[in-house]
């Protein structure tokens, strides 16, 4: 196996150029989508900054995406085939929600379940961190 050794500064310069190329390509693809589908359709799955702030504040991702899609709790519950009271318990974290219910809710919201799961995990960690910080300050 060939091994290449190079100075860190050169390695970092290569990484920077690679990142810039990837970033440019990502923006090229976005611009092409906007041209093709129109602004509204191309950005329909992008959250407004207020909603991202709600996610990073630990609000339940189902509730945030429901707000983005402009659905009432009853409308989402009906579309997903879960009861409104169960949806309410999920959104307020009184119940974690069965995998089946979460799959149906994610599909009705047109959001990948992975994305919902990642935010739920992030929310739990930030809760734990805040708890840790509060305990640490005592």
């Amino acid at each position, binding site marked *: 196996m060939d091994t290449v050794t190079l100075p860190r500064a050169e*390695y970092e310069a290569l*990484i920077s150029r*690679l*990142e*810039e190329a990837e*970033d*440019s390509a*990502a*923006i090229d693809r*976005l*611009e092409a989508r*906007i041209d093709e589908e*129109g*602004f*509204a359709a191309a*950005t329909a799955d*992008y959250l407004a*900054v207020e909603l*991202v*702030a709600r996610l*990073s504040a630990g609000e339940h991702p189902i509730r945030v995406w429901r707000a983005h899609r402009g659905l009432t709790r009853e409308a989402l519950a009906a579309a997903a085939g879960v009861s409104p009271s169960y949806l309410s318990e999920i959104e307020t974290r009184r119940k974690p929600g069965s995998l089946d219910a979460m799959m149906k809710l994610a599909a009705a919201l047109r959001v990948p379940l992975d*994305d919902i799961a*990642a*935010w739920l*995990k*992030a929310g739990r960690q*930030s809760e734990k*961190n805040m708890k840790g910080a509060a305990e640490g300050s005592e």
Partner: protein
Amino acid sequence: MQPQQMPLREARGLLRKLGEFAADPFATHSVALPLAGRPNRARIRQADWRAVVLIARAEDTVAEDTVIVERVDHRREVYR
């Protein structure tokens, strides 16, 4: 790394910088780096993270620019 893995403190810092940038996207911002020499593209850094943005205009609005964050990524790491 995914944006969901971003530490809370840095997520808040990046959101604040994005807010400042979006308030006047074509002004010169100390937090923004140009991208490919295009005036409607930029990268906004927060520690080892960066947001890659496009400034775009919806066809149905008269003068409102929208800053679209296309990706948030962490710098590649290597073992030292």
